[in-house]
């Protein structure tokens, strides 16, 4: 809240610098098999209304019964956000009418959420890190889905999503740039995926963000904010904030004022626009849901969940730096996705971790990026890459040959050691064989020998020739040592 923006984060306006203030409300679909209050499936993409119970369809007399897994997942998420866990929380009805909300209200948590204040540490590309406060996390039901494009006069409603558990995670207005906002959602997503409490799939709506944006002169009181609804990719979040901040600055500099309103981001035009139908101020008339008793959990239960939390990205990063002596940057790259970190750890296990990190980050990631893949669909398994590194470590192949081997394993597969043997790629460490190569080169080039004796740097020419005549397979170390002796350097 009191964090000061670095000067380069400020936005230049006609009347001087402006600071953008951003808070986020993130809706994360809870990973569970069945819905928050019914036994219908949460699976994505079923036939219309096939994952719907009479509870989700709000038939009269149906009663909600809470799914203990969703409660557990919300608490685990709270613990991962280093947040206060409320041992007693209450479900309320948030009343509004919309065709995809058959109950006429959403069961949500208003005054007493299951999770209170917490924080997330966000690392920025320039190395700076920012602590972003979490205001709260509460459990609520998702709504159904309306399709508007099938008929000019009618909307088609599918309730498969109706009643699926969501965690609404609300940040404090601690973000000061679109970069920070993008880094925040990236980090939050990473934490959720490490915990296994949300799959983080923004394309399928598993993670959606509403972004609150306001602008002010640095140090001034908070400006009036606009809420940008349902921005469904990290890139769009950045674009929406950039557009919205400039829009607000222009209005204020032209002598106007900002109306507090809900806006929609249009990814095709890269702009936000007012959602006019929401102009009438909402009055949700929250009250405790009489169908549900308060949600109570014990301290022992919370402690148990806490003791079973997996290692989260920040801890993993610290451990990689401590145990493997990796740089902050390398460790950050490796822990960003859980699958990546797991891949790296399995490559590094029992091997030179720095060498493993280099191969994973430079060769593997480089190659994966080029082909638009990620580590989960890598043609090269962690054990293959590990095998390749073993061959470098025990001197069987040189670093140069290793890159060729990488290509072969990538496109053709196979066991690294078997490939090296079958294709004769092992480096020649047999000193007798190397000596014969050296003797031949020396015998044919007496003039170069004289040069090398006068200027030891000229020995590099011999190294090159010997490597060439060995087909690149001679051990460079052995070649160097032997040449020095033979040339008397």
């Amino acid at each position, binding site marked *: 809240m009191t964090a000061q923006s670095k000067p380069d984060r400020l936005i230049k306006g006609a009347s001087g610098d402006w600071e953008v203030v951003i808070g986020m409300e993130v809706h994360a679909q809870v990973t569970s098999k*069945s819905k928050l209050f019914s036994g219908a*499936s949460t699976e994505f993409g079923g036939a219309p209304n096939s994952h719907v119970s009479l509870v989700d369809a709000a038939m009269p007399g149906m009663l909600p019964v809470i799914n203990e897994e*969703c409660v557990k997942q919300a608490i685990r998420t709270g613990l991962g956000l280093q947040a206060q866990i409320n041992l007693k929380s209450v479900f309320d009805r948030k009343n509004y009418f919309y*065709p995809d909300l058959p109950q006429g209200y959403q069961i949500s948590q208003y005054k007493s959420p299951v999770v209170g204040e917490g924080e997330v540490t966000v690392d920025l590309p320039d190395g700076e890190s920012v602590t972003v406060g979490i205001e709260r996390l509460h459990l609520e039901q998702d709504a159904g889905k309306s399709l508007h494009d099938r*008929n000019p006069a009618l*909307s088609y*409603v*599918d309730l498969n999503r109706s009643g699926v558990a969501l965690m609404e995670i609300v940040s404090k207005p601690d973000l000061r740039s679109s970069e920070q906002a993008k880094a925040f959602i990236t980090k939050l997503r990473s934490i959720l995926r490490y915990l296994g409490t949300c799959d983080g799939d923004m394309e399928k709506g598993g993670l959606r963000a509403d972004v609150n944006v306001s602008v002010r002169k640095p140090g001034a009181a908070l400006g009036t904010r606009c809420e940008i609804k349902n921005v469904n990719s990290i890139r769009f979040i950045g674009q929406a904030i950039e557009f919205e901040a400039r829009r607000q600055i222009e209005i204020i500099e032209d002598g106007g004022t900002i109306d507090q309103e809900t806006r929609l981001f249009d990814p095709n035009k890269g702009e936000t626009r007012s959602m006019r139908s*929401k102009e009438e101020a909402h009055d949700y008339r929250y009250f405790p849901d009489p169908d549900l*008793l308060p949600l109570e959990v014990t301290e022992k239960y919370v402690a148990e969940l806490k003791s079973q939390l997996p290692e989260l990205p920040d801890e993993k990063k610290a451990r990689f730096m401590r145990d493997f002596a990796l740089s902050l940057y390398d460790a950050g790259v490796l822990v960003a996705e859980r699958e990546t970190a797991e891949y790296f750890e399995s490559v590094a296990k029992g091997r030179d971790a720095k060498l493993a990190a280099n191969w994973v980050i430079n060769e593997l990631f480089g190659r994966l990026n080029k082909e638009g893949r990620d580590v989960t669909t890598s043609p090269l398994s962690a054990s293959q890459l590990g095998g390749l590194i073993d061959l470098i470590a025990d001197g069987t192949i040189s670093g140069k040959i290793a890159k060729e081997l990488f290509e072969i394993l990538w496109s053709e597969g196979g066991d690294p050691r078997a490939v090296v043997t079958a294709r004769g790629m092992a480096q020649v460490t047999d000193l007798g064989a190397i000596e014969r190569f050296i003797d031949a080169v020396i015998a044919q080039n007496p003039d170069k020998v004289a040069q090398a004796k006068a200027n030891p740097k000229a020995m590099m020419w011999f190294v090159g020739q010997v490597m060439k005549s060995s087909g690149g397979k001679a051990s460079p170390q052995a070649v160097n040592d032997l040449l020095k002796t033979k040339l008397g350097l």
Partner: protein
Amino acid sequence: MSVDAATVRRIAHLARIAVAEGEVEHLKDEINAMLAFVDQLKEVNVEGVEPMTSVTPMAMKKRHDVVTDGNDAEAVLKNAPQSEDNFFLVPKVVE
């Protein structure tokens, strides 16, 4: 606490209940009579008493996370005035 005619119209609108203009005055009096009745509770001193959210001295029952329901679109859509391909059809709503 009491409500005026404008509040009655607003509550009716929020609840999507059609109220004819001629009914407003009467409804206002009825609601105010109820509010006055409930207002008697204010006479009770509740200093230091925790708000009661439930009258049953029991903990909320929780379900296991198992899929036990669904796959019956026919039953779900049985009362729908209009449906097609297992979708509910409603008058067009566009934001």
